[in-house]
């Protein structure tokens, strides 16, 4: 029986709730020849015996809607009803990796979900279709060119004969995949570019979707991490007996950063962790504070050591000959990702291999870390990606991996390793704090003659990049993100970065460095416009006069927001435009302040992401991106004191709630036909500045520091 259980663990995946709902048993095999007889025609495309299709996606569905787009792409190319298509994230494999060797990796980020995978998935599905057609041609003894694939079957129109995908799959799998399959013409694509219903929504609404936190394996125990709240801190010692006094606690195991309290239930594990006497090891981070980090950032703004991202013309000469020079400093705080599902994962070391289930966003990063800690070769590790309760970049960091693997290997039984909310926020890698000094010079007629942007602060890539890939003093692309390729044409310019690397570990946060750079640049443009006594939108138009694509986006947003008309009584409008992840995005925020209370009424977004494959999914991403950006701009900041974050839960870390959400969010697409751009991230960066610019108009004072509520 033991062998049999092991075989099930190795050959099956995806969980179904058992009748009691208490234990989730395993079902649905991965590859060909599995118990349910699913046949693989391509890494992405698998045919079930009943002819329905199961897709393995390279991307984690965090709620951004990518899986729905992938189902549409495959359904369209194959010729099958989208209702007959199911999907899950595949296990790490080459077909799911992006990038070029040796840096190819599987992961979800950079808003690549549709823009990168559209073509490979279309091609994969077209290959599968041609293999099915070739198999049908053989069976029917007709030319492949006389056959078409539609509604889950291959049809010979001349004779009316039809063969379902299920009946063809086995022989199709023996065909050589065509190297250059013919893609269907746009006119035959039924689902792409149409209003799709998200495939993951019904189970989420019925609450039948099992997040990792809902999953239970037979014999599973729970391990609650108790970690030093000081960043990168370790434990000196702990008194096991203090936790064992709690009913249900089974063991306490040392892990990096502290200890894991193992118990029969998660509640007992949490109580045990609470009760555990633990002594933290003193470290030099114990005294670290936001004030110290802020001082280092400010020093970096004027320092002579910097790495140049781009320069042109003669900034020094322009400043020397200028009648006026404006120089202003901006600063933004650390931000937490704070997805709603705190970190948890399930690990089972079977003795010959290791299974890992979790809300994973960076599969290869996790796989490498699991392999390094467990000593299993990657081919003996099965990484099961479970749809997460939120991502935003939090699932890229593998801080939760080593402890989980250590405990599972010590116990040799399935272990659910988890963080409390407090631990999740305490050890979560952060969007770095960052500062900027922006300078502009003008001649006597107030013509803009040069500008420069110096960013300064912690380097995200020093923490998150491959070890050794960045050293002190280097140019971190995240700190100058989307400055080098900025479309504003100002011949005399200089953009550089002074690394001041101290503080908590940092990682990508939805839209990464664009979140602060859009704030710096787009607020400064408004400040320049104010000095020149120009309408801020007109100034942007003049700086983009050479660029019809950018003009189309800002003009669309200007028209849709009624920019040229007066704002409703008591309200002000702020404009912003920023490009990131291959998409151009303009936004207008309409806000008011009554009795000191800031209120955002309306946000209009115009996005040019080339083309839109899943329009409602994209609108949903714009709405969510706008709200996440507003949330951060209005109220979010992680403050460091005594080496730790002082916001430890949602009572102190302020996330925007429904009453503060705009009543109107208008999402518009400008279809330029340019190569596909991202959707999940580009609407986030400009909203920081659009809001700040509206607030500046209302108060008469420029906003140069975030969050707005704390200034």
């Amino acid at each position, binding site marked *: 029986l033991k062998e049999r259980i092991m075989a099930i663990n190795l050959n099956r995946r995806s969980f179904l709730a058992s009748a009691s709902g208490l234990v989730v048993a395993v079902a649905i095999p991965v590859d060909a020849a599995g118990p349910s007889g699913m046949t693989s025609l391509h890494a992405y495309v698998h045919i079930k015996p009943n002819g329905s299709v199961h897709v393995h996606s390279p991307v984690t569905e965090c709620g951004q809607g990518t899986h729905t787009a992938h189902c549409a792409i495959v359904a369209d190319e194959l010729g099958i009803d989208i209702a007959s298509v199911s999907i899950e994230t595949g296990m790490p494999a080459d077909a799911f990796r992006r990038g070029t060797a040796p840096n190819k990796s599987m992961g979800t980020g950079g808003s690549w979900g549709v823009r990168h995978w559209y073509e490979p998935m279309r091609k994969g599905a077209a290959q599968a279709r041609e293999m099915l057609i070739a198999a049908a041609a053989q069976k029917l003894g007709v030319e492949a060119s006389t056959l078409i694939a539609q509604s889950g079957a291959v049809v010979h129109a001349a004779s009316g004969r039809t063969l379902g995908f299920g009946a063809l799959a086995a022989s199709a799998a023996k065909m050589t995949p065509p190297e250059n399959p013919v893609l269907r013409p746009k006119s035959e694509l039924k689902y792409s570019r149409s209003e799709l219903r998200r495939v993951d929504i019904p189970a989420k*609404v019925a609450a039948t979707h099992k997040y990792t936190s809902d999953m239970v394996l037979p014999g599973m125990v729970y391990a609650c991490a108790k970690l030093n709240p000081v960043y990168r801190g370790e434990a000196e010692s702990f008194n096991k007996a203090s936790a064992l006094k709690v009913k249900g606690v089974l063991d306490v195991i040392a892990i990096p950063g502290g200890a894991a309290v193992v118990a029969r239930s998660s509640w007992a594990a949490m109580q045990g962790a609470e009760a555990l006497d633990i002594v933290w090891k003193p470290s030099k981070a114990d005294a670290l504070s936001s004030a110290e980090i802020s001082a280092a950032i400010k020093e970096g703004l004027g320092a002579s050591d910097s790495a140049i991202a781009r320069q042109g013309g003669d900034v020094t000469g322009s400043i020397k000959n200028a009648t006026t020079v404006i120089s202003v400093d901006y600063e933004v705080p650390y931000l937490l990702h704070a997805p709603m599902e705190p970190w948890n994962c399930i690990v089972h070391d079977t003795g010959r291999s290791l299974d890992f289930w979790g809300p994973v966003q960076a599969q290869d990063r996790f796989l490498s870390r699991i392999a390094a800690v467990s000593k299993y070769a990657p081919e003996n590790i099965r990484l099961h990606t479970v749809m997460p309760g939120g991502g935003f970049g939090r699932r890229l960091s593998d801080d939760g991996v080593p402890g989980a693997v250590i405990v599972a290997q010590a116990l040799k039984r399935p272990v659910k390793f988890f963080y409390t909310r407090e631990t999740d926020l305490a050890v979560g890698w952060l969007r770095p704090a960052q500062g900027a000094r922006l300078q502009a010079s003008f001649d006597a007629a107030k013509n803009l003659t040069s500008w420069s942007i110096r960013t300064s602060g912690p380097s995200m890539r020093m923490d998150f990049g491959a070890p050794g890939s960045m050293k002190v003093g280097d140019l971190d692309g995240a700190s100058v993100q989307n400055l080098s390729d900025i479309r504003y044409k100002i011949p005399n310019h200089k953009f550089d970065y002074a690394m001041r690397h101290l503080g908590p570990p940092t990682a990508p946060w939805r839209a990464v460095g664009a979140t602060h750079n859009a704030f710096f640049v787009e607020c400064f443009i408004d400040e320049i416009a104010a000095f020149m006594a120009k309408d801020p939108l007109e100034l942007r138009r003049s700086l983009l006069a050479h660029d019809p694509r950018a003009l189309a986006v800002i003009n669309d947003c200007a028209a849709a927001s009624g920019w040229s008309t007066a704002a409703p009584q008591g309200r002000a409008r702020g404009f912003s435009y920023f490009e990131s992840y291959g998409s151009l995005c303009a936004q207008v925020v309409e806000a008011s302040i009554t009795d000191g209370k800031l209120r955002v009424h309306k946000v209009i977004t115009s996005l040019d992401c080339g083309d839109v494959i899943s329009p409602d999914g994209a609108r949903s991403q714009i709405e969510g991106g706008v709200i996440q950006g507003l949330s951060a701009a209005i109220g979010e900041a992680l403050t460091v004191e005594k080496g730790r974050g002082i916001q430890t839960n949602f009572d102190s870390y302020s996330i925007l709630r429904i009453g503060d959400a705009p009543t109107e969010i208008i999402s518009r697409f400008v279809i330029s036909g340019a190569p596909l751009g991202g959707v999940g991230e580009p609407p986030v960066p400009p909203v920081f500045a659009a809001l700040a610019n509206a607030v500046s108009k209302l108060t008469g004072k420029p906003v140069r520091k975030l969050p707005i509520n704390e200034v």
Partner: protein
Amino acid sequence: MIRLTINGRAKTIAADPDTPLLWVLREELGLTGAKYGCGIGQCGACTVHVDGVAVRSCATPVDSVKGTKITTIEAFGGTHPVQQAWIEAQVPQCGYCQPGMIMSSVALLAEKPKPTNADIDEALAGHICRCGTYPRIRAAIKRASGQA
């Protein structure tokens, strides 16, 4: 032993009396629709009904709900009009907070069949959605109440 009525069925609970209801539901009864989000009644992901009133089960000792009628999202089976409206309005993104949002919305509509935006904002003030689905939540509630 504590006796509870959950989704119309009598249950006998072995947990200690001070165990919060959330962990009893999730781990003793296998009702995982209510989620752990913060543990301090700040995010609303754990919301269930106690005698029709939306409460935060993470901060409700199981002992305190003896003799009450407890309803969790599992009672609705995915077919409740509010759940249908949620699908029509394509509300969820990651979905983790949505069972709690739905529970509070069902309680709101029982009390106020035609809620205004202000009613909705007040009823859901104790909830957090990190994905930012608030506009669609408002739209779904309006739809469920026949106002859209």
